[in-house]
């Protein structure tokens, strides 16, 4: 027991130390690399809290996909950084920094106080939530909550992803609109990366489908599976085996929208059959949920891949 506490304390110190280091980093690229490692450490921390679903999402989306977006951004910013280091250009005045330190310290202290000095068990709806899960055919409480009780949140998350993608696409210059994202990478130079890009995707696709399927009963689900699919796609693009598709292609638009659309369609049928928006009829709840999750996985994978690929930079 005390050994576990020791390991947890080391993990906490590592997370905090790395966070400080990232903030102190003078250039963007090392900070981003630190951020990716930070995400993986956080995933470990979530695992120690027995939150496997959150850990997987943190590792796949928080660390992996967001890390890829940030690395791409820091590479783009590198030229500007060497000309005039923006981070060192105008540091905030000392009183402002002290104020920020004081305020964030207060928030931390208040949170710590709430956790450490409350008596009795924390109020929880977990029991009530788990009671009704068999009706949905879900063994994994997290998936059940995400897709049934908090279905509206989950739906809006997907819509937010879609909005983010539109935001990135809207950065394209007019003549490139509808074109191919990013600079062309088709240049067969790196044998090692090409080998990985040919070996890994078949394995990755199987793992992604498995994680989607097992999400009903154990940690996993649409977001984690979709992130793995997106990673496989990005690997193929990075190795230069395939370019990203032009964003005007009908299948791209279809893949990007079909997930949220299916979710909304199932939600609307909730008015006709059971008793309201986003409620599932008991008899076919599980097949319906799995169908929605499968389509969502496809959409998430394509959206995440295109988010990393960036705005169109080649003519269609």
């Amino acid at each position, binding site marked *: 027991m005390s050994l576990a506490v020791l390991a947890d304390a080391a993990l906490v110190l590592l997370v905090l130390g790395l966070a400080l280091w990232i903030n102190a980093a003078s250039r963007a690229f090392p900070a981003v690399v630190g951020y990716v490692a930070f995400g993986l450490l956080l995933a470990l921390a979530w695992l120690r809290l027995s939150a496997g679903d959150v850990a997987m999402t943190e590792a796949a989306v928080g660390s992996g996909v967001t890390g890829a977006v940030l690395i791409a951004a820091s590479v783009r910013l590198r030229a500007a950084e060497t000309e005039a280091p923006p981070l060192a250009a105008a540091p905030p005045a000392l009183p402002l920094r002290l104020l920020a330190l004081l305020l964030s310290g207060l928030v931390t202290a208040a949170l710590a106080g709430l956790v450490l000095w409350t008596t009795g068990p924390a109020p929880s709806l977990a029991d009530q939530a788990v009671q009704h899960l068999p009706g949905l055919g879900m063994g994994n409480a997290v998936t059940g909550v995400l897709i049934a009780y908090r279905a509206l949140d989950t739906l809006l998350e997907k819509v937010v992803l879609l909005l983010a993608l539109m935001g990135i696409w809207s950065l394209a210059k007019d003549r490139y609109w509808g074109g191919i994202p990013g600079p062309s990478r088709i240049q067969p130079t*790196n044998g*090692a*990366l090409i*080998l*990985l890009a040919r*070996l*890994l995707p078949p*394995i990755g696709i199987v793992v992604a489908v498995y994680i989607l399927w097992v999400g009903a009963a154990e940690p996993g689900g649409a977001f984690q599976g979709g992130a793995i699919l997106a990673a496989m796609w990005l690997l193929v693009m990075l190795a230069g085996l395939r370019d990203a598709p032009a964003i005007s292609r009908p299948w791209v638009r279809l893949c990007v929208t079909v997930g949220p659309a299916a979710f909304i369609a199932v939600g609307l049928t909730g008015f006709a059959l059971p008793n309201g928006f986003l409620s599932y009829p008991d008899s076919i709840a599980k097949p319906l949920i799995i169908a929605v999750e499968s389509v969502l996985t496809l959409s998430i994978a394509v959206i995440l891949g295109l988010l990393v690929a960036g705005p169109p930079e080649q003519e269609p």
Partner: protein
Amino acid sequence: MMLVGNIATVVLVSLGAVFFLAGTVGLLRFPDSMTRLHALTKADNLGLGLVVLGLLPQVDSVPGALKLVAVWVLTQLAGATVTQLVARAVWRGGGRS
């Protein structure tokens, strides 16, 4: 039989930890990027291999054991590729960093 398995686990995982420690020391102490990569890959390869080998007696199902081995194989694949990429980047940048 349980005892043999437990002893094997302790010995193999400890050996793996030694390799990780050596790899980390090498990463911190070696003079340039190429030798640091060399130290790191030894830890990835042998260290993780020994840890996985040591954990196998503790797994109670064949699929579980296969998953552990798959973790090692995939780490090998990714590690070898990333090492190649980093080494090439260092080489193009003048061999030293």
